[in-house]
């Protein structure tokens, strides 16, 4: 089993108050970066799918992580290598030179070269929340796709995915190669099973730690660099940002005397009923 996991680094949501919108972009200087949480969950799922939960030290497949971004994003890749990914690819690009379609095009070239069985990714990045790269990628590759996966079970030549939808659970059976995007429940103890992991096994809740020996070994794992020209030649940006501004300040709340006043305010001021 070979799995490709695209990763994006995002500004730590705890620093959101430090984000300064300027005329046509968001000033990111001085921010702390971390892996987009949903991408971390995708990586954890990929690791679970390429091991026997009982003997996780022995790798039973290959996990390749890829990011599109400037040199500093290599720390993001190395942190993924330290948690267990086998090798990494960085496509060199400035954040301003990217949109969802461009990233999907770059990933498409890498998928065509690497031929993974599964592309496993976060359902969306918590910065722009656009929720589109997985879908655009699957469309471009003409691969089957499951979004918002809550559980994944490896099957012979494919995967069985469950998605939580209004009113129940939707099951999708996909043939490899495929694209799967994951939701946060995917890192629960009983969410992901490789063919080798016994169904009675429970994984540790959440994503695994990068222990120091693994961090040291990650330095020696391969990290290839490509240029955006290598993988997305001739692609133009389709999304152009013209203006950024902070969300409006929340107004202070008001106390109401009784239900009648509440209903009246909901109707005339909040205009929600």
């Amino acid at each position, binding site marked *: 089993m070979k799995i490709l996991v695209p990763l994006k680094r995002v500004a730590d949501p705890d620093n959101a108050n430090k984000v300064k919108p300027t005329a046509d972009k968001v000033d990111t200087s001085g921010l702390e970066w*971390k892996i987009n949480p949903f991408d971390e969950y995708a990586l954890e799922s990929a690791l679970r799918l390429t091991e026997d939960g009982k003997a996780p030290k022995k790798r039973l497949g290959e996990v390749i992580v890829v990011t599109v971004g400037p040199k500093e994003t*290599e*720390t993001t890749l*190395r*942190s993924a290598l*330290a948690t267990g990914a086998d090798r990494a690819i960085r496509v060199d690009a400035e954040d301003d030179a990217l949109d969802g379609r461009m990233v999907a095009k770059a990933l498409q070239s890498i998928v065509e070269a690497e031929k993974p069985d599964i592309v496993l990714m976060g359902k969306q990045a918590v910065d722009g929340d656009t929720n589109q790269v997985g879908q655009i990628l699957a469309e471009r590759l003409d691969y089957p796709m499951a979004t918002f996966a809550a559980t994944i079970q490896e099957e012979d030549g494919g995967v069985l995915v469950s998605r939580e939808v209004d009113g129940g659970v939707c099951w999708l059976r996909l043939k490899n190669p495929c694209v799967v995007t994951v939701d946060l429940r995917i890192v629960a103890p009983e969410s992901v099973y490789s063919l080798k992991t016994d169904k009675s096994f429970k994984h540790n809740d*959440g994503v695994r*730690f*990068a*222990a*120091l*020996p*693994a*961090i*040291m070994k*990650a*330095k020696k794992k391969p990290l290839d660099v490509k240029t955006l020209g290598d993988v997305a030649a001739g692609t133009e940006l389709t999304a152009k940002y013209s203006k950024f501004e902070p969300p409006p300040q929340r107004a202070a709340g008001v106390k109401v005397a009784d239900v009648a006043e509440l209903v009246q305010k909901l109707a005339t001021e909040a205009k929600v009923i």
Partner: protein
Amino acid sequence: MPDADDTHELFRKSCLRFAEEKIIPHVIEWEEAGEFPRELYNEAAKDGVLAASIPEEYGGGGGDMLHSLVRTEGLLPCGSTGVVAGLGSLGIALPPVMILGTEEQKKRFIPPVCRGEKVAALAITEPGTGSDVAGVTTRAKKDGDDYVISGSKLFITSGVRADQVTVLTRTSEDKHSGLTFFIVEKGMKGYSVSRALKKTGWWASDTAELAFDEVRVPKENRLGNEGSGFVALMQNFQGERLGLAFMGHATAEVVLEDAIAYSKERSAFGRPIAGFQVTRHKLATMATKVLAAKTLNHSVARRVLAGEYLVTETSMAKNFAAQVAQEVCYEAVQIFGGMGYCRETRVERLSRDARLLPIGGGTSEIMNEIIAKGLGL
């Protein structure tokens, strides 16, 4: 000066995550109880944050000295220096084994500690001698193939629970060349914990007085030759003092963060207290001190990592950061007002914990003596 590579940053983040997930939810309970569960050693070992700079072949993390130092930065936001010091006692107890031990001794005494199965402590200080480390009177007398150890040790971090203690003893009358390290193991006849000490801070770390009443120790537990203790002790102090220096700036950084946040939330006279220039300037000065201490510590640490032996600078770093921690903690408590005097806040706990920094691992006066000597005085 070699740059720290991103392994240090990644490791700091792993430690921070460990602090957030495995310590913070219980920290008040453990502080009040005066200890943390022993299983935390196993957990820390499993998550790879316990023995950072011990080579992997002995079960450690295989990192360098800077990895153990950034571990302190990563763990300290847990808000209990006691937990950090308790988990960290192996960082002072194992280096003498690494420096002096035979291959067999390293294989025997190091891996169980790195796995979190055994707790290790270092015992230098005695009721009768602290600053004058070479004044140690705990005696190890040769008797056939064994040694018989008699004496007592005071203020020993993790001493109450220790399974093995790296003990500095006197094997001859020569002040400096008469010192020898031994490993004394729990269960050896005559070895006992006399009492657990109640302290100003570091509550979650057990601190003991230990008694050695004619403890018979086989020569296989002697580290190095007779008389080799002093040099290893001095080498070990360098790591310990840098560790305490890092504890200093990390403590100050954490309480500064809390003070900034609190000053924005807390209102008085109709506006956030951060709106008073007095408070703003206080915070500005605190932040400047934190940066100065942190920068000095990192610069000394990186030079030591590159192979320099910096006794004077290490003492300066320890003194400066310890002092910064006092000042910044004092002001942070002040900004918190009454809340800063209440045990539920991180600021209150860390301000008590910080008082140890100019005392432990060599007092500020002793550091200044070393610095003065370095100046040729």
